[in-house]
């Protein structure tokens, strides 16, 4: 499914990823966890062929990132990077995921497929809504529908919980759990939220530019490893958390990366 070997990425003197190796089997739900600046987004960009690699190799679905089989991969970008001023409806956005190009017009069959994907994430009624009129959480779901409409083998998400409230976050994790368990989709999710990672993900990758731990999520994200990655803050929050308030308890204080 995914095999990363000795991956190294440098930006000038800074080494964002240093000799990172891991492997992922089909059907796993992987959390990529680490503090700010630890190379999580860089790793994701490498997987998606958006980032030049200094050394090492990546094989995703049997392909190198240069000839990524993008129709088999669903990608959900960070909500805050999206252009809300673009004149488009939810349905068009989903169809762009199906076609891998922007639609000039949408025939009924494709429209139906897009609506089915929107229904799958519980927002079938928003199909004709303009993107500019969606809330952050709704837009996140439209993107999720767009990724799922491809019927992907792998779903890749960058910080899906950023900027949405606790309820929307819970709903999103429910959808991801279902997609992972019932449809067998492999999920790779970048997150700060290591509590959610422990709770929902089968596997975890703990990064701090070097790989600190990888494997099944509970042992990989144990207290000792968290302390290594996050410093003392990881420890403070390691016990007595309740997952319904991830942002009150789950976001360790970080100095700027």
């Amino acid at each position, binding site marked *: 499914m995914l095999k990363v070997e000795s991956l190294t990425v440098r930006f000038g003197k800074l080494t964002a990823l240093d000799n990172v190796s891991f492997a992922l089997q089909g059907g796993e739900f992987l959390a990529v966890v680490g503090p700010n600046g630890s190379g999580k987004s860089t790793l994701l960009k490498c997987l998606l062929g958006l980032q030049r690699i200094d050394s090492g190799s990546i094989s995703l679905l049997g392909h190198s990132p240069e000839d990524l089989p993008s129709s088999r991969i669903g990608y959900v*970008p960070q909500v805050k990077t999206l252009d809300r001023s673009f*004149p*488009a*409806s939810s349905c068009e956005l989903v169809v*762009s995921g199906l*076609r891998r190009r*922007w639609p000039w017009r949408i025939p009924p069959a494709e429209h139906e497929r897009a609506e089915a994907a929107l229904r799958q994430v519980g927002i079938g009624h928003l199909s004709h809504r*303009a993107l500019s009129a969606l809330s952050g959480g709704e837009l996140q779901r439209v993107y999720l529908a767009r990724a799922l409409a491809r019927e992907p083998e792998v779903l890749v998400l960058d910080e899906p919980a950023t900027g949405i409230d606790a309820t929307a976050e819970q709903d999103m994790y429910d959808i991801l759990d279902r997609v992972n368990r019932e449809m067998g989709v492999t999920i790779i999710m970048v997150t700060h939220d290591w509590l959610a990672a422990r709770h929902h993900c089968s596997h975890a990758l703990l990064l701090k530019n070097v790989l600190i731990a990888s494997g099944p999520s509970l042992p990989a994200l144990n207290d000792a490893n968290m302390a290594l990655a996050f410093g003392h803050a990881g420890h403070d929050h390691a016990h007595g958390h309740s997952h319904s308030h991830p942002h009150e308890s789950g976001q360790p204080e970080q100095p700027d990366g």
Partner: protein
Amino acid sequence: MDSMLAIFLRIVACGMLIGFSASYYGAFVVQRGMSFLGNGLAHAAFGGVALGILLGQEPLYVALPFTVLAALGINWLREHTKLAADSVIGLFFALSMALGIIFLSRVPTYSQDAMTYLFGSLLSVGVTELWISAALAVLTVATFPLWPRWAYSTFDRESARIDGQRIRREDYLLSVLIAVNVVVAAKLVGIVLLSAFLVIPAAAARLVSASFAMMTTLSVGIGVFSVAAGFAISYQADLPSGACVVLTQILLFALMFALNKGGIKWPREI
């Protein structure tokens, strides 16, 4: 000898062809937040025109490569620095103007050509200009199959890259096409008002469009219509052509604004 009407029709046809291309690219320009690019390239064209006059060549043929080079330069510098687009465009804007002023200062006699390009002149439109704008329009139509790609990368560059689009190549192509458009249009409407052609029809269309396909279509409609209407007014009232077209565009913008405030959007299914 051509009749007055024949000359007028030639001018209108030429203007509508240019308006068509400009307002088509305008949809991408506006939505990509590159409105300032039109302005920057128009002033780069001024540098090229001045160089043409200095060299005693037909200004258009010097301005064309000059402006295309400026467009490539803008793209290149953006790629190789972290500067915002408007800073990079501003730099090339200033460079071209400074060069243009120096070139003109070396021309011994006063040049009507320079004024023509600055403010546009209908009288400068001959058969050559008509053919050039027709060629540009054909070129624009030939890029229609690229619309789904350009629209996709306009919306989300990252997704387009993941889905195999060569974003960088697209950027260069788009800005070269815009540069050509700008130079061809400069003679007709003048450098000073030129960026309006790229920006106002698309911005007006944006106000009442719920989809990018509709925005593109309306932008072209507004672009072509405002040239025809503006030139008719200019001809009737004996007013400068470029200014009449731009004022017509702004009138249409106001109309779209009113429709927008009235809650009107197309397609209506929102």
